[in-house]
């Protein structure tokens, strides 16, 4: 364990030991976990063993989140600069990048070498896609960094599921417009995740291309120039996935389609739960108030946070996007999810459960208190919401 210290002129020496420091290996190594499914299948011959990584993600992780609870601790502000200069944390991010490729190629190897049933094939494709969705999270943390190496690594890892437009769309699109009706990556009250996906996936793609077009125009370059950063990442995807098709034939095509879509779906799932119904106030001049911690749903559940590079401390992340994962803070009185992300995804996949849990939670937030004018609500749903939650909606 390392202790960082800061000599404060007013408070004396401030010491801090990051108790989670060694545990961040969980985030770095988690991308390899799906290989356990392949190993267990190989050892037992039982195809259902390929489900183990999914069972672990959607049953064990929410259970551990429930049992282990939350970590509310924050590093002292005075040592944050040192924490962020400590290369150990960024090396753990870099490490995850090749591991995503290893798991992806391991799944491909299994598909082409094993005599899988259709069910086994589907399970493996879904599991591999979920892992590459995790890779979007790795790319997310890397893509918020400003150094060229991190940005390059982000492009590379996002190429696994063919989502190279994510960094630009996320930083310059989603972060800028978060918690507004205009943001395609912020879900609205009354909007189920399936309807949201139809808005979010094409919307993100379109916005990224528009942003890149404007940036390249400023530089006097064509959309099809090698400087197009979306094309750079897509090119890596194309080389990998077309090479695989040439090498192993059309039997891999369904795998690649399912894999890519499931990875995108993982991101959609995260976007859906992160800002559901939250709304920034519009100022008199037509612009929105700056993003505050209460414009994101937060989770301090320690286990899933350790698997996701603190992604779930989303309130601080959106209020201060360049803050590194190891220094993200808990805030008091911010919108809080009832479980970590994996448990919340399960709820979201069953819209009646999601609405039953989250709509009252949303309306009861301190800054909303039943005022629907402070909610990002699906157009046309307002009256229905007023009737359904009459006891919670302010008159």
């Amino acid at each position: 364990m390392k202790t960082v210290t800061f000599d404060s002129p007013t408070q004396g020496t401030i010491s801090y030991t990051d108790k989670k420091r060694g545990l961040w290996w969980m985030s770095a190594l988690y991308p390899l976990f799906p290989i356990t499914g392949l190993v267990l299948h190989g050892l037992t011959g039982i195809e259902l063993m390929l489900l183990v990584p999914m069972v672990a993600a959607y049953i064990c992780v929410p259970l551990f989140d429930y049992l282990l609870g939350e970590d509310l601790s924050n590093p002292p502000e005075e040592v944050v600069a040192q924490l962020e200069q400590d290369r150990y944390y960024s090396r753990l991010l870099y490490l995850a990048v090749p591991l995503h490729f290893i798991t992806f190629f391991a799944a491909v190897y299994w598909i082409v070498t094993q005599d899988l049933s259709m069910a086994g094939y589907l399970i493996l494709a879904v599991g591999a896609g979920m892992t590459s969705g995790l890779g979007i999270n790795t790319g997310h943390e890397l893509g918020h960094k400003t150094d060229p190496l991190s940005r390059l690594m982000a492009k590379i890892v996002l190429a696994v599921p063919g989502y190279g437009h994510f960094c630009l769309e996320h930083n310059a699109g989603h972060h800028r417009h978060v918690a507004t009706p205009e943001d395609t990556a912020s879900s609205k009250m009354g909007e189920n995740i399936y309807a949201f996906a139809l808005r979010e996936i094409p919307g993100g793609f379109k916005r990224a291309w528009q942003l890149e077009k404007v940036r390249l125009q400023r530089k006097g370059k064509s959309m099809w120039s090698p400087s197009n950063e979306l094309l750079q990442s897509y090119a890596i995807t194309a080389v990998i996935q077309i090479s695989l098709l040439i090498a192993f034939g059309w039997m891999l095509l369904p795998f690649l389609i399912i894999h890519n879509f499931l990875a995108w779906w993982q991101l959609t799932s995260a976007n859906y739960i992160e800002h559901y119904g939250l709304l920034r106030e519009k100022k008199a001049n037509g612009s929105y108030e700056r993003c505050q911690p209460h414009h994101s749903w937060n989770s301090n559940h320690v286990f899933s946070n350790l698997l996701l590079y603190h992604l779930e401390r989303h309130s601080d992340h959106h209020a201060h996007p360049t803050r590194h994962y190891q220094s993200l803070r808990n805030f008091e009185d911010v919108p809080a999810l009832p479980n970590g992300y994996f448990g919340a995804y399960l709820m979201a996949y069953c819209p009646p459960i999601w609405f039953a849990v989250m709509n009252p939670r949303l309306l009861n937030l301190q800054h909303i208190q039943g005022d629907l004018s402070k909610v990002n609500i699906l157009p046309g749903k307002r009256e229905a919401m007023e009737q359904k939650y009459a006891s919670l909606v302010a008159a």
Partner: protein
Amino acid sequence: MKKYQCPDCSYIYDEAVGHEHEGYEPGTRFEDLPEDFACPACFVREKEDFVPLESDSITSDCAKNKNSVVRSLKK
């Protein structure tokens, strides 16, 4: 040539340097940046939020902390 600082992440727009990646040539004056200019580091602060720097001093609390940090990593 003047400098302007993002009040959230401390990014400094230096007119002498511009921002090549975003397509702003060296010498691009702050007032000539488009009205929808957002901080190219954090993207959550816009042109109207940027703070002009009188000299080379860095003003935000965040940056003060980063610059005055005492490196003392101990095993």
